[in-house]
């Protein structure tokens, strides 16, 4: 049984329908990647799953449970199981790195204070920022903020992790570090949906890829299937441009 199943999900910003019936499913511990041109709705898929962009149709199942996103209680339940790293990081500007990491574990999850603190420090060293615990986000570079955002999401111990362009602002050496971390998390059973423009990264980590265009999933398959032998014209067109170099 799929750990996360999305079927025919629709979502709109006001009158503009951005997701026009999205379906995919992931097993526990799998990494699925969403790729596609800018504006195709990749971020919106993650936002809709977090209950940030209203879902206007379709169904989302998490661990076999159908979530009704029009119920505030079920949205809370969905958010309790997932964590997101936003494309723009969205670190809390008024808090230190440490406070960013510990706020929800302490105030929402009500976990033990000492454990939360030591886990936060462990995660910060995992992303190579052990020395930045007391910094504010305007003292960090883009890549550093992104890694803090990743650590903040991991501090919530989610079953499902949603990553939006998590390697876009990283140095090449850090990409490998983050990649290793992500792969290790998957081995430990964390389910992930990643959005990425970097096909090399996707090929490395993803178990399956969905190619999106104009609010729809056009084609799905393993990275090799999609990148090397796309079946649809739109996918062939996209990958030939993006993989040429």
């Amino acid at each position: 049984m799929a750990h996360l199943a999305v079927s025919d999900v629709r979502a709109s910003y006001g009158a503009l329908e951005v997701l026009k019936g999205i379906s995919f499913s992931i097993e526990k511990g799998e990494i699925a990647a969403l790729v596609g041109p800018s504006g195709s709705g990749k971020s919106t898929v993650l936002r809709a799953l977090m209950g940030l962009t209203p879902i206007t149709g379709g169904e989302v199942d998490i661990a076999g449970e159908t979530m009704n996103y029009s119920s505030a209680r079920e949205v809370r339940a969905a958010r309790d199981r997932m964590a997101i790293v936003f494309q723009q990081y969205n670190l809390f500007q008024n808090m230190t790195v440490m406070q960013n990491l510990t706020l929800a574990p302490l105030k929402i999850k009500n976990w033990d204070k000492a454990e939360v603190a030591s886990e936060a420090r462990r995660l910060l060293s995992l992303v190579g920022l052990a020395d930045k615990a007391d910094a504010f986000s305007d003292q960090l570079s883009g890549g550093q903020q992104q890694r803090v955002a990743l650590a903040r999401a991991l501090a919530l111990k989610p079953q499902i992790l949603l990553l939006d362009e998590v390697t876009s602002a990283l140095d090449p050496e850090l990409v490998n570090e983050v990649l290793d971390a992500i792969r290790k998390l998957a081995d430990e059973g964390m389910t992930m949906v990643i959005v990425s423009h970097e096909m090399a990264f996707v090929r490395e980590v993803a178990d399956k890829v969905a190619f999106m265009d104009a609010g729809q999933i056009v084609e799905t398959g393993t990275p090799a299937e999609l990148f090397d032998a796309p079946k649809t014209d739109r996918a062939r067109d996209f990958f030939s441009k993006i993989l040429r170099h």
Partner: protein
Amino acid sequence: MERIFEQIPRFFSGPNLTLLLESAGLTLAMTMAGCLIGFGLAFVLVYVRQTPGKWAMPLRWICILYVEVFRRIPFIVVVYLVLFFIQAVTPDASLFTIAVIAICLYAVAYTADIIRGGLESVPQTQVEAAQAMNLSRLQTNLRIVLPQAWPVIVPPAIAFAVSFIKDTALVSQVGVFELTFRGKELNNQGYSGILVFGTIAFCYFLLSFPLSMLGQYLEKRLGTPRGQRRTRKLWSP
């Protein structure tokens, strides 16, 4: 003119100065109490006004109506309304209490928009990040939005309080012994109007100027990004 110089020693005598000091204190106390309580209530009003959902529609409307109505009534009318209303309910309420309530009602309406503007200046993405972690609306406001909104809220809120120090002169109309009331009294006792009201004017200046300075200081301090504020602290010996 000569009369003024003649009167100076007598005018600045102990009893008169005590009277002036007392009324200056009263003016300041009224303004600060009214504005502070009003400021606190304005937060509640803005919070209620932002309640989502259909059921909260009447609540939202009441809040909007309150602000719109009170912003359109002259302050002195509010003072009289409060005076007669309170006296009808509890005849022995002090004039000071009545003045504070009137200032408070007025301050709520004016600072509510300042607060709303401040809260809305914080990027929606900050709110979304909090929502994604299941922070409640109250938690999000108190822990994320409000701390970031202070720099936008504080300067105009202080400017409002400062300008209100002089507007409280209007409550002398109902007999509160604030500065302007004392001025009229002293004037009636035969002191030169120029001398009396010149002194009163100076008192108003002395009351509001330090507050303005505080406002400017806070504006500068709050306007500095957090990281830089800290860095500067680290550098200083």
